[in-house]
């Protein structure tokens, strides 16, 4: 019998929370070591997923299906395919690094912090593995709370409450609409087939009239678009990032935002394929606006974290653009770009966190010449910056290349506009890098900054390994998603043939 790896991944952090609760709250180091150990075990448990994953098939793997509330058709149904595999690996890979990053950073309410972190981890895994809409929604909501607390309790005292509530309101607003849509879907399925179920894979098969798809797509889409975040729903992101503690920003950027894009890929598009085709222009244009807008606003930022936050808006615009091409390179590029963004932006937030620990400021103008006191830091910062602007040989390039290729097949104008985002990225990232790292040390407080410790180098080493690996040999990762992407595209293509007639129907009704 196969081990229920996915369940272990979901529940191990919860067991971990139990262990933490027993431990003495004053013993900070002990709490941190315990959390580190739990997250490392979690990572080790997730490794068999990677190695035993069969990349030839698009079917769900490591499936566990148990009845939960059979009267309502709710089941505990988890499984993964190529899309979720990469995101789960990213999550389990980043969490131990995040724990390491809290070593000196978090000094009060350590126990609660670690509990939040583990709860967050459980929630994130849950979102990526759920194949039952109800289960998915539970995890989606559960995850909000620890994140809200991370920002609201351990954030920057000045504006943390504002940022936390803004984050919460935005996301909650979207998910309530999604909840309504899930219920509508549930009853529609029940009416047409006679069985009431929340089973996602069964939902894929059911035919939904176009005008219903239209509204459902928007309801789900809004929840996910807020999470991504797509323009114009992005304004919670800079505040949340700026006020959150380092680790909060890292997880927010690296994993939480991916839930939005993942949601589009897993729920929105396959369930409402006709509507998805119908909305391609709208979402592509919003993605393009996000790319250019995020980049241009980044240029004006004075705060390191805000700058990186806006660059996230730009990068995730690329992901969305890729997914909405419904082409092989576009979708694969979108997925690989999700991972890339997780690695690069996660690393950037860690970098900012490290200088924040030393200087207690994030203003770009406060820095300058850090290359002299902190040479190792400067090298790592440079690699990550270059990865973020998509230098060939590092990961960002692979994603951007595939996305632009896919976009180009569909619409040349979109591709051209998106390509300008690449130039802007070089402008603002290099500008930031220059102001922080190059030049003479003008501020006396920067003169004797300590270079990175071994612990800090150990956090970056694995990140950089993968940044280079994806850049040099992306096939390792592309192969895993190939079958799933083909399957996804086949589903979308089937819908496209019927799309024309149905959009006529819809327009007829609208008149």
């Amino acid at each position, binding site marked *: 019998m196969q081990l229920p790896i996915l369940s272990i991944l979901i529940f191990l952090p919860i067991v971990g929370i139990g262990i933490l609760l027993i431990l003495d709250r004053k013993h900070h180091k002990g709490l941190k070591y315990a959390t580190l150990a739990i997250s490392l075990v979690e990572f080790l448990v997730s490794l068999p997923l990677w190695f035993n994953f069969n990349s030839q098939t698009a079917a769900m793997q490591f499936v566990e299906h148990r009845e939960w509330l059979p009267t309502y058709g709710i089941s505990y149904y988890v499984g993964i395919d190529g899309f979720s595999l990469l995101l789960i690996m990213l999550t389990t890979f980043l969490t131990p690094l995040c724990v390491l990053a809290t070593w000196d950073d978090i000094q009060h309410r350590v126990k609660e912090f670690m509990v939040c972190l583990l709860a967050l981890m459980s929630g994130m895994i849950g979102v990526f593995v759920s194949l039952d809409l109800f289960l998915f929604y539970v995890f989606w909501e559960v995850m909000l709370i620890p994140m809200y607390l991370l920002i609201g309790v351990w954030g920057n005292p000045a504006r943390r409450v504002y940022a936390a509530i803004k984050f919460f*309101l935005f996301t909650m607003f979207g998910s309530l609409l999604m909840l309504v849509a899930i219920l509508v879907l549930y009853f529609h399925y029940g009416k047409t087939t006679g069985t009431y179920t929340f089973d996602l894979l069964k939902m894929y098969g059911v035919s939904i009239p176009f005008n219903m798809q239209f509204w459902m797509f928007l309801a789900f889409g809004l929840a996910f678009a807020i999470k991504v975040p797509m323009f114009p729903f992005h304004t919670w992101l800079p505040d949340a990032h700026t006020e959150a503690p380092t680790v909060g920003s890292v997880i927010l950027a690296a994993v939480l935002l991916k839930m939005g894009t993942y949601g589009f890929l897993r729920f929105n598009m396959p369930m409402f394929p006709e509507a998805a085709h119908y909305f391609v222009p709208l979402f592509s244009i919003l993605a393009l606006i996000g790319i250019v807008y995020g980049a241009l*606003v980044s240029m004006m930022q004075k705060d390191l974290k805000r700058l990186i936050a806006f660059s996230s808006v730009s990068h995730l615009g690329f992901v969305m653009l890729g997914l909405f091409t419904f082409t092989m390179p576009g979708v*694969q590029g979108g997925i690989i770009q999700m991972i890339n963004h997780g690695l690069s932006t996660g690393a950037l937030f860690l970098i900012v966190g490290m200088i924040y620990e030393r200087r207690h400021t994030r203003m770009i103008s406060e820095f300058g010449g850090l290359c002299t006191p902190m040479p190792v830091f400067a090298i790592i910062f440079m690699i990550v910056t270059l990865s973020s602007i998509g230098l060939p040989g590092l990961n960002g390039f692979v994603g951007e290349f595939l996305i632009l290729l896919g976009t180009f097949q569909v619409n040349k104008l979109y591709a051209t506009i998106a390509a300008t985002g*690449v130039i802007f990225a070089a402008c603002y990232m*290099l500008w930031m890098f*220059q102001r922080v790292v*190059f030049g003479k040390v003008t501020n006396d407080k920067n003169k004797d900054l300590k270079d990175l410790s071994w612990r800090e180098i150990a956090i970056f080493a694995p990140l950089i390994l993968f940044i280079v690996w994806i850049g040099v040999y992306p096939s390792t990762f592309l192969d895993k998603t190939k079958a799933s992407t083909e399957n996804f595209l086949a589903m979308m293509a089937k819908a496209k043939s019927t799309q024309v007639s149905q959009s006529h129907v819809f327009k007829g009704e609208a008149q």
Partner: protein
Amino acid sequence: MVFSDPILLGCLLTVFLPLSAFALIMIFTRDNPKLSLAISLVAATIPLIIAWTFFFKLGGRAPIIYNFDWMVSDLVKVPFGFLLDPTSLVMFVIVATISWLVQVYSIGYMAGDPGFGRYYADLSLFALAMLTLVISSGLLQLYIAWELVGLASYLLIGFWYEKFSASEAGKKAFVVTRFGDIGFFMGLVFLVIFYGSLDIATVNSAAVANSMPPWLITTSGLLIFCGVMGKSAQFPLHVWLPDAMEGPTPVSALLHSATMVAAGVFLMTRIFPFFAASATTMTVILAISTLTLILSSTIALAATDIKQVWAYSTVSQLGFMAMGLAAAALASGTLFAGYYHLTTHAAFKALLFLCSGVFIHHFGTNDFFTMATQGGRKLVIPMACITIAALALAGIFPFAGFFSKELILTALAHLDNKLWLVLGLFGAFLTAYYSFRVIFVMLFPKSPEAYSKVPGHIAHVEDEAHGHGAHGHADDAHGHGHDEHHGVPWVMIFPLLVLASFTLILGFCQDYLEKLLLGASHPHAMNYFLLVAAVGCALSGIALAWLDWGRKDAKCVGFISRFPALQTFFIQKWYMDHFWRWFLNRFIYGIFSKWFTYNDRRVVDGGVDAVAFSTVGSGRLLSFIQTAFLQYNLLFMVVVLAGVGIYLMMGR
């Protein structure tokens, strides 16, 4: 498999040795100058040997191609591989040789610099990128190497990162060339989608066999040329190159001769049949490169910084090469003229920069008027070498530049419209003038007062902030003062002699190279009119320079000062820098960024904040009892879940 095939092994070594040198130095030996130097030199010498061996062994053979799969997605298969044919072999030799010479030269130039190890790591990265670019078999791989070349230049131009202008120049080089690279990239995307392959050999043969739609060739040709404009500093993207002299002088030598800027022209020769298949593309290239030639030659007339003069001369010679290639393509000629000029130019331009480096190192200034008055000509060998190089640049027989310029002018003469030829000749005249302006000032210095009227020249020796600061870093570190006029170290002299002999020999290798590149050498019908015209232009340029700067009672103001408006125009570099700065500040920052940021704060956020602020009030209230947060949220969750439950009940 790898070891049984010496050619493949050679290619792999060429790529991986500099790569491992870069990694080793960066990670382990950065603080150990001697060890870093040794690693880097080993990693530069072996590719040098490989390059020359390949050159002689494989020169006449059919192209050798290796391909390995790299990135496979549905319709894109991107192979990684090597293509060894005459076009790449010649460039391979040039790059390997010049980067080796520069590494040797830098032993002396950079001695004592605190960043010595880092410098050699960056040089290795540069070699890696450029060598990969030269021998790559596919255009995407070439593009990747192309970007890495940009990265290496960024690092080396901004090498003295403590200087604001240096890091600024590095950034400018990166961003401006990237601007062009987007075009290049889109060109590649066009090709891969509408043609399906990025393999260089396939693309070339398809263009020759007419199996590609003409619109595709024109569109992607023009887009790819955008990349060339960026890298090879063609108008209007030339603005980064003159600033790039902020880097150490050996880096400028490398940048201006065999690597960064040569990459663009090399790309044009690499897919020359493809470019040549579209007359529209070639006409555009011809126009842009001619404009570049005239623009940069006129700016060089007025420059007072020795490196700046050579920088603009590089821009103009690159324009000249592109003109040669475009003209040859339009008149169904061959790539030889442009390629040959690239080869000879690599030798004499590297020589010019390395010689200037000796002077800069010695006198601690970049201003050649100051060098002259302080006795620059007493450094006999560098002075002789720089004169040889300037003669070659001006195109005087029997130096290498003469032969290659002659070929390009011949190609221009084949065009129906003779205006191009006239402009080319005018460029040659200006080139001769500004290069001998430097030489005559250095050879026959006048009293410092004589130069006081030169605009831009800083008259007082003490006031050498900009010159000395250029590598004050290096100087402070090893206490190289003015009273300590030690001789120039042999590691710096040796590369000069090698390059000078190349400058002398290369002119006579024309037939050999042509045979190698084209398979057959065509005896050239001497066009005597052209010969006389070209030599006449060069000589009159030199003569004018003599009248203005060389002879005993020269006025030392330059003929251009009779046209003050023009002079200002040239000194201000045709206001191109101003234009870009204005464009950036006014439009990108002033309008878009500012307006968007405002929009983000006020408009998009405004509506949200109305909601949010009202909640913040309750949030503040709650923050008195901070622990209540958890309960509050749990309550919220319970309400939500209860809502779900109610919905479910109602559904039944």
